[in-house]
């Protein structure tokens, strides 16, 4: 055991005892700990195995950039893989497991790959598993995927809830360190609406981690005063545990608030996480800076971590990384580390400063100037370090600092690239204008006083600035320190993907010197931490290897998300039944009473069939057809789109929308209409009725109802703005039922208040407004999709189920039956009526056998393009009927049609089956097909080839109308 809990200090509540397990072992921590700090305090430094070489790993950081200490958190449906131990707040009952090891974390067989590691260089997979090509998918990839990979996902549903929220503010402040707090305070005191968000569990940022003095008190005490003031202001929203993960168009920010991640289970009615969309007039990024590791041998060994992480563990969490420490770096911050550690009684063996000179105060610790740590020596824990000059120092931990990289990610999410500053050795954020400014150490302000002043200035751009408190500054100077080439062991750049310093010059030598290519070739920066720690080091090494400057190499693209976001946060509450709304028709209750089986059609629940005892869907649908054709049936057709069109120019407007003419339609009559797209292809069909001179009611197919409405609005507003017409969707206002069959008229007659139904009063294609059942206003249409003498009856939605029940009662003496979409579909195929299978976005009016409907006398959408050669070619596939030569055979939808003796090929393809049904009237399978030059080829025998299902039968092409060709039943 090397790490341990300090006797005093830290922002932890030692009166609490939080029990938790890691790989089954029970430990105890305190309120205020993270899982990482609690593990260190318990002497657990081995926290995981690395991705490729399975090397033992511990924490490198104390924050969001952590690449190593990834654990599986929780169990069952709440299990979460790859969570950063540095960001997990400890709670009582926490269960965690290490990842990426077998059979155990301590003894891992995969670590043997390290012995063969000279083979596993960058590009190894590309080079080794190229041949034979066929091996990749079946052999190589599955093996590699099993050996590599991080944690495993739970296969159980997540029992927790997620929410989505929107917020607007004048100023969004991202980060709550000294800069962010000052920015928020400055804006808030000007009565701006302020949101202050921080990814950490507590506001305060670096002031929680460091020993600072502000305004005559400690940095921590100062934060408490500012947070209390902000918390008391009604115009301020404080969002701790909230990561701003992306900056998007229009100054919109995506954020994830971890509402309950610090609890064992969320409180009742509370979500686990809340996804925020924040519209900010102005934003100040005060995200701070990330300390860079130094590439030296064994810089991934448990016990090696960034200097600021080691300070943080000691200052904030009272956890020591080891009893004796070597501090190594090329900037002044290492001296502060040594002093802080010393103040906690942690022995610092030496400060190893790569620079020859420094003015910083070592406070009595030996300083080795111009020296370099070449290798950390040990295994699962550091035992000593070797310096480049051969010096050997025993120690249990190494604090390293290569410098500081401003956290500019968000500032680059909208495309701009950061700019290299050769003096500060940092990529500075690009200029994004007033609406998004970067302040403090995120803008490379290295002194505390500069951060406080910068925050105050950028928080309140207009109006009077607030007073900036006095503070103690730590001088800062830095020299480049990227890679100690005297190292013997592996020097890691990207810890999570196991990319080493040597991989980058190799990539350059092999031609992948462009930063984006080098990234992909070495996988540097491609892990879940997105290269937060290692990318700048990688750029520096690549620059040196190729003789370019940092600017010339440049950074890879910064993309959202700043840190990984759970699927739950994106999904929000829209899962299961809430995934999409359910639309029920006004006749839903009635259909349910009748035992309907429902089918989802888009959002709609449509009654599909009405089975009786022992019937399957086919038996039920067949009975429904026989009953309807034999006597009478009733079907819910409320899902058809219904659009009420009124105005002086209503007829003219419809003439523009449809390829046929509606302005000539007589009042009280209905007409079938065909709507084209502007490219001449059929878009939709339906009947439109004229109820008055200036009043029509259109119907659309169920599927296209919303799209047709939008198209009408476009046609009217953008194409023909001078037409005097208004229209509104009334789909949900009217319940509509088809009543079909030879007994439909006597059935409906019983409901009529005054109307005496005859062929004269209600002729074929009549559309009348009538009164039924003692005063209910209704619309009666004599329309038929089934081919029977039939009607459609529409009533205001609220009357729907009641009227349907009344129709059932009226038809009882005739043996009325409800029928569903399946029976409807069988009857339409028997009658050769086109539907979705034929109106499939490839067919013209001519293809559907409706070429004669297309008017040549008026302008309408699609008119010109429909005349193109390719769309009028007689060899186009046209709708035909198809029936098996042997009536016992079955044909299937989707099967292709071939001439009798042809072999299946694209060239020989003659068309395909668009819809089939078992016809109870004809006692065989019949179908519709699209068939080349089809109308001229009725009577031809073809092969129906179904390669997918391995099925081939012979069939005859025929008229689409399989049943009652003379339409006698329609007019009976």
């Amino acid at each position, binding site marked *: 055991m090397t790490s341990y809990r300090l006797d005093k200090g830290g922002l932890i509540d030692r009166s609490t005892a939080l029990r938790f397990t890691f790989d089954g072992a029970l430990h105890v921590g305190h309120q205020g700990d993270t899982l990482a700090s609690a593990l260190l305090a318990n002497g657990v430094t081995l926290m995981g195995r690395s991705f490729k070489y399975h090397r033992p790993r511990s924490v490198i950081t104390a924050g969001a950039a952590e690449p190593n200490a990834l654990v599986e958190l929780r169990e069952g449906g709440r299990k979460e893989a790859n969570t950063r131990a540095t960001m997990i707040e400890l709670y009582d009952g926490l269960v965690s497991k290490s990842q990426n090891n077998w059979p155990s974390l301590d003894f891992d067989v995969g670590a043997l790959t390290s012995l063969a590691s000279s083979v596993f260089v960058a590009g190894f997979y590309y080079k080794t598993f190229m041949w034979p090509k066929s091996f990749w998918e079946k052999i190589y990839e599955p093996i590699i995927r099993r050996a590599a990979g991080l944690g495993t996902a739970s296969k159980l549903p997540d029992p927790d809830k997620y929410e989505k929220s929107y917020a607007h503010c004048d100023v969004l402040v991202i980060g709550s360190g000294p800069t962010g707090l000052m920015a928020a305070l400055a804006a808030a005191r000007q009565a701006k609406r302020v949101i202050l968000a921080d990814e950490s569990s507590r506001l305060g940022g670096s002031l929680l981690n460091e020993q600072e003095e502000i305004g005559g008190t400690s940095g921590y005490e100062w934060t408490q005063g500012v947070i209390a003031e902000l918390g008391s202001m009604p115009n301020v929203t404080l969002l701790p545990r909230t990561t701003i993960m992306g900056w*998007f*168009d229009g100054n919109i920010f995506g954020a994830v608030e971890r509402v309950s991640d610090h609890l064992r289970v969320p409180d009742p009615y509370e979500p686990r996480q809340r996804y925020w969309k924040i519209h900010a007039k102005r934003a100040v990024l005060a995200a701070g800076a990330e300390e860079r590791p130094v590439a030296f041998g064994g810089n991934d060994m448990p016990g090696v971590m960034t200097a600021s992480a080691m300070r943080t563990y000691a200052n904030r969490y009272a956890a020591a990384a080891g009893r004796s420490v070597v501090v190594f770096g090329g900037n002044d911050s290492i001296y502060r580390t040594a002093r802080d550690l010393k103040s906690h009684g942690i022995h610092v063996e030496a400060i190893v400063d790569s620079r020859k000179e420094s003015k910083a105060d070592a406070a009595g610790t030996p300083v080795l100037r111009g020296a370099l740590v070449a290798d950390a020596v040990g295994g699962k824990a550091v035992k000593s370090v070797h310096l480049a000059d051969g010096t050997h120092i025993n120690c249990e931990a190494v604090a390293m600092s290569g410098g500081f990289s401003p956290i500019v990610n968000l500032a680059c999410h909208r495309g701009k690239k950061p700019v290299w500053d050769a003096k500060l050795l940092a990529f500075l954020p690009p200029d994004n204008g007033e609406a998004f400014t970067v302040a403090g150490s995120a803008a490379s302000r290295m002194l505390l006083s500069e951060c406080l002043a910068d925050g105050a200035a950028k928080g309140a751009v207009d109006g009077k600035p607030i007073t900036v408190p006095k503070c103690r500054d730590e001088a800062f100077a830095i020299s480049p320190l990227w890679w100690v080439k005297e190292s013997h062991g592996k020097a890691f750049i990207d810890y999570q993907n196991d990319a080493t310093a040597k991989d980058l010059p190799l990539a350059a030598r092999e031609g992948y010197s462009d930063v984006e290519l080098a990234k992909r070739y070495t996988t540097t920066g491609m892990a879940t931490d997105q290269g937060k720690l290692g990318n700048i080091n990688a750029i520096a090494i690549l620059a040196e290897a190729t003789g370019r400057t940092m600017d010339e190499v440049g950074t890879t693209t910064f993309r959202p998300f700043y840190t990984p976001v759970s699927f739950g946060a994106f999904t929000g509450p829209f899962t299961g039944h809430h995934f999409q709304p359910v639309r029920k028709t006004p006749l839903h209750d009635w259909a349910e009473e009748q035992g309907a089986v429902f089918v989802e059609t888009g959002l709609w629940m449509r009654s599909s069939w009405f089975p009786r005892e022992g019937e399957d869907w086919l038996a039920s649908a067949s009975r429904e057809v026989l009953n309807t054709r034999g006597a009478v049936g009733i079907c819910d057709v409320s899902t058809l789109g219904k659009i009420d069109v009124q105005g002086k120019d209503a007829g003219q407007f419809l003439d523009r929308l449809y390829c046929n003419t509606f302005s000539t339609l007589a009042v009280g009559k209905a007409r079938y209409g065909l709507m084209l797209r*502007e490219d001449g292809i059929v878009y939709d069909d339906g009947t439109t009725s004229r109820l008055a001179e200036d009043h029509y009611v259109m119907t659309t197919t169920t599927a296209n109802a919303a799209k047709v409405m*939008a198209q009408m*609005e*476009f046609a009217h*507003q953008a194409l023909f703005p001078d037409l005097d017409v208004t229209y509104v969707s009334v789909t949900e206002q009217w319940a509509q039922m088809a009543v079909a069959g030879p007994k439909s008229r006597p059935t409906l007659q019983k409901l009529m208040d005054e109307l005496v139904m005859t062929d004269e009063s209600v002729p074929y294609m009549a559309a009348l407004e009538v009164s039924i059942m003692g005063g209910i206003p209704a619309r009666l249409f004599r329309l038929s999709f089934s081919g029977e003498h039939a009607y459609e009856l529409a009533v205001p939605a609220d009357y729907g189920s009641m009227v349907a029940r009344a129709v059932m009662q009226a038809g009882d003496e005739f043996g009325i039956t409800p029928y569903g979409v399946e029976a409807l579909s069988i009857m339409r195929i028997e009658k050769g009526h086109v539907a979705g299978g034929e109106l499939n976005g490839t067919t013209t009016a001519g293809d559907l056998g409706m070429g004669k409907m297309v008017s040549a006398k008026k302008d309408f959408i699609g008119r*010109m*393009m429909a005349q193109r050669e390719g769309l009028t070619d007689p060899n186009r596939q046209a709708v035909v009927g198809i029936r098996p030569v042997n009536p016992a055979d079955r044909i299937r939808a989707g099967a292709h049609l071939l001439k009798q003796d042809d072999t299946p090929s694209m060239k020989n393809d003659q068309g395909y089956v668009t819809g089939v049904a078992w016809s109870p009237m004809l006692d065989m399978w019949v179908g519709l097909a699209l068939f080349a030059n089809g109308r001229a080829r009725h009577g031809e025998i073809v092969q129906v080839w179904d390669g997918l299902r391995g099925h081939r039968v012979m069939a005859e092409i025929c008229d689409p109308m399989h049943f009652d060709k003379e339409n006698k039943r329609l007019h009976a």
Partner: protein
Amino acid sequence: MLIPCPHCGTRPVEEFTFLGDAAPTRPTTNDPSTMEAWYEYVYLRNNPRGAIEEYAHHSGGCRSWLVVSRNTETHEVFGAVPARDFTRAKGAKA
């Protein structure tokens, strides 16, 4: 992204459905000799870098068709007018 709907005020882009470039004008004749113009209207679109005027349907709001002007490169939105006014203005110019 926020769209300034002339009827509803500034609304989030999720409420809108975009159709594309509003520059092409639907020919007013059905004369076969104008087929080329029709072909261009139906199929040919520029893909400008920079300023563009686009049809947008406020499908989740007032259901007006608008013409939104924005920058394809920066995604800056400059304004929006009813498509009706846009078409009429185009007609007046022609």
